[in-house]
């Protein structure tokens, strides 16, 4: 029989890396019950908490990298334990102390970010290539809005449409906006969740000094991950500017009467709440308001929407890792959408876009259904 002794030194390492909230856990297992992983495989969140409490954490375990940081458990935890902080602390211990192994795919993405400032390993000078034909101007002091599209739409050929649609809308509405130079880097949200704290700090410092030297007052972002870190994490590091997700910005333009739709989209559209917009930041209504405003569009809902919305599987650095077929949450989502008779799955996050795009292909539904960012739908209807 295996006998364990509590090893408080390991607990201390996790505490030092920010895992102290786990002290409060009373082991009810609600987190496990809520965790979306248990729809597809076993993932005992509670057990990870208890192992960490006793210093019995297996830093080499694959489960160290499993959590998608979707916040479903934190939202309901009866003791208010910030479970994501604990998961991040365990990863931090691995990444910084080298006491376990980081999955290859994640290590490469992190290396890319450190090297060229984006996880895709693309050339920094090509960051704004997507906008070449759109006459988007460079941000200069005094420009009203900085549009910051996220690395994925900037480089990924399929997802570029998120950025270009946004620019098209802003152009049509004659908004005074600009793009920041190619020295911008990844916001760092996902590498931070993956445990690369130092990398995050240097990315944040780079972006903060870039924004402040350009006198940026308001940033509009396409990615809820950029939104989250700019809004909730950069201020502590000195980055103080107003941040709006594109859906919030567009909803405000509709409210002011500046944005009006002229074309109909006669489709059944189902909206998937991004975790970092919804559960992490309580933005649920604006994306729906926009979709409901488009003439002809019929908005339908997933069986578990809003606070209960299922993650696409791309948070917490998982977007850079491989998830085996049969364990992809976005596959479940695509099936649910098909069952509801949706024509389009509307999204508001580039990571969701990547995952749903792949799921449409792998489930053979690319013919019958489309994935579209809300910005794309707005650009079509304007």
């Amino acid at each position, binding site marked *: 029989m295996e006998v364990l002794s509590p090893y408080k030194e390991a607990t201390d390492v996790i505490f030092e890396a920010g895992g102290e909230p786990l002290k409060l856990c*009373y*082991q*009810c*297992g*609600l987190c*496990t*019950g*809520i965790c979306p992983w*248990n729809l597809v495989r*076993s993932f*005992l969140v*509670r*057990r990870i908490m208890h192992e960490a409490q006793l210093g019995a954490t297996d830093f080499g375990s694959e489960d160290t990298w499993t959590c998608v940081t979707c916040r479903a458990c934190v939202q*309901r*935890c*009866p*003791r*208010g334990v910030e479970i994501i902080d604990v998961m991040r602390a365990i990863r931090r211990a691995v990444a910084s102390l080298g006491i376990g192994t980081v999955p290859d795919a994640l290590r490469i993405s992190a290396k890319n970010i450190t090297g060229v400032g984006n996880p895709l390993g693309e050339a920094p000078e090509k960051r704004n290539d997507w906008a070449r034909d759109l006459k988007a101007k460079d941000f200069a002091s005094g420009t009203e809005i900085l549009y910051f599209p996220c690395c994925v739409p900037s480089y990924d050929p399929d997802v570029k449409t998120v950025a270009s649609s946004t620019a098209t809308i802003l152009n049509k509405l004659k908004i005074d906006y600009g793009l920041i130079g190619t020295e911008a880097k990844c916001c760092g949200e996902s590498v931070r969740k993956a445990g690369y704290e130092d990398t995050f700090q240097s990315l944040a410092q780079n972006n903060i000094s870039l924004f402040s030297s350009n006198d940026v007052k308001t940033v509009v972002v396409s990615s809820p991950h950029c939104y989250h870190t700019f809004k909730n994490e950069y201020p502590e590091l000195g980055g103080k500017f107003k941040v709006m997700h594109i859906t919030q910005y567009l909803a405000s333009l509709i409210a002011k009467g500046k944005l009006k739709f002229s074309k109909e989209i006669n489709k059944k559209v189902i909206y998937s709440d991004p975790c970092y917009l919804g559960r992490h930041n309580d933005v649920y209504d604006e994306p729906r308001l926009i979709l409901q405003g488009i003439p002809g569009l019929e908005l339908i809902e997933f069986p578990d929407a809003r606070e*209960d919305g299922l993650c696409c599987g791309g948070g917490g650095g998982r977007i850079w890792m491989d998830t085996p077929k049969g364990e992809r949450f976005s596959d479940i989502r695509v099936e649910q959408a098909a069952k509801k008779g949706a024509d389009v799955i509307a999204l508001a996050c580039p990571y969701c876009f990547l995952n749903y795009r792949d799921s449409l292909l792998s489930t053979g539904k690319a013919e019958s259904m489309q994935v579209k960012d809300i910005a794309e739908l707005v650009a079509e209807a304007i």
Partner: protein
Amino acid sequence: MEEPRIGVYVCHCGTNIAGTVDVEEVAKYAETLPNVIVSRHYPYTCSDPGQELIKKDIKELGVNRVVVASCSPRLHERTFQTVLREAGLNPYLFQMANIREHCSWLHEASPELTEKAKRMVRAAVNRVSQHVPLEIRGLPIFPATLIVGGGISGMQAALEIANSNHMVYIIEREPSIGGHMAQFDKTFPTLDCAACILTPKMTEVARHPFIRVLTYSEVVGISGFVGNFRVKIRRKPRYVDEGKCIGCLICQEKCPWTALSEFNAGTSERKAIYTPFAQAVPNIPVIDTEHCVYFLKGKCRACEKFCDAKAIRFEQSELIFELDVGNIIIATGFDTFDAFSIPQYGYGRYPNVFTSLEFERLCSPTGPTEGHIMLADGRPPDSVAIIHCVGSRDKNYHEYCSRVCCMHALKYSHLIKEKTNAEVYQMYIDMRCFGKGYEEFYDRIQNEGVNFIRGKVAKVTDEPITEEEKNKLIVLVEDTLLGTMLRVPVDMVILCVALEPRKDANEVARLFHLGRSADGFFLERHPKLDPAATMSEGILIAGCCQGPKDIPDSVAHASAAAARALAMIARGKIEVPAVTASIDEDQCSGCKICNLLCPFDAISFDDEAKISRINEVLCQGCGVCAAACPSGAITHNYFTADEITAEIEGVLA
């Protein structure tokens, strides 16, 4: 005033003080202070010989003011004040220096501690010179007691007091007394039926010569103070003449209009003219004007037509009257947590998800199913899940433990096993079976073959993934002891909902000047040593309005509150504390600033004399008025500006 002759007594407290403070030196130093005629040090000043020492000095040396340098005044101020009183000195000619908690225990050992103790003694000597004798006065009280709430706690307190032949009024806002306990079927851990032990008590209360039960009534106002409250009561119209009604209930039988039964927790209907349950006390119906069609549309009067006693009174109106009482016991009970707040458990969406209170009614022979445990479609369940801690022990709802749910969950298991032989699953976080006979009851239920799953339920769903889950409710939970996710298909789910403060607890708190603890329940004066009293003198709390309790604890709490009230009734008068504020009428400019500041409405304005006056009985001695008076006309006795200045100068000199 006579020249102060101060005696100083420095306590060793064994080694607690003497270990780090040179008590001998402190005592010697005290001798050098002005007006000190004797200074001693003694191993345990609070002991009998220590007290005798002080008494002897008062009598033989003519000591007329006393300073004791020992522990916290919160511990022994009263002890030494009694010594003074017994020796014939006014107890307020006394000052303590807290050289234990605030000196020898609080700082690292160093010679500085002796110096600090000296400064503290000097400050006390300075201050005691300023003290003046204060009067403790007595005031007669009303012997009657008002009890708000006619549940088990209110009834228990009423009987305790009334059995001493003192008048008690019970105010109950429902048409009948009985409270939540009347809704229960069996009671844990003995499984005696609630009605069998409660209804005789209800009858006893109703027939007691010293108890007057006022149902369908509420307290709407209160004035006065401890021992001398005047309470304003509103009696809602029953529309039935209580003197004439013989309780035949033909009206209820003939009434064609219905509403959901509150007593059956909404699981069945009642009529628009109704008594809430068959054993209601008083057994006199009320007309619910929100559902009576005569009141809504002016037509019907069926009840009137069939009433042989001619007791229906559609023209009745509400009655406002006043009662004079000396003590008030608040026993307003609890509400149950709204299960709709946790949508993932499916309450309201799935007809076979019940709350604990609904299940009590389902089990009860007087309930909607005459005691048959059945599903919404009338079938008996093959399997039942009982979910613990619904709304309890959860920061998103109530952080506290509701204390009764583990036990009633065990009771439900037993009743289900007894009546249906269904498979029972208990989903619990921790089993808390702490009372007398409770662990034994847990043992018994386990022996009956109930399944225990340790884990907080994540979700109840009706979406099957296997054949055997079809047409079932599936409970998703991690079995934390196995370390595996479970899907438990059942026919019925019972949610053990939290006990929470009454929805209108805030208004009740404001009316009776009660504090509320962080959980929203009424705040007791001391959580351990004074759980039935409140910070408002003469207002006591009993039962679940103070926090979740089971029946034995509610009864004990109610008896404790009754004992408190009886103590005052037996004394027949109250002592007004001397630490109050008083106004120098010559200096008062009549600015009224203090009137509004007083949290106890103890200061009123005398329109004729154009000055403010303090009711010393209402005054609780906080000193807010004295600190705010721009004319310096208010004195906070025992804490006067001169006294505190003397102490300040003492510590700083």
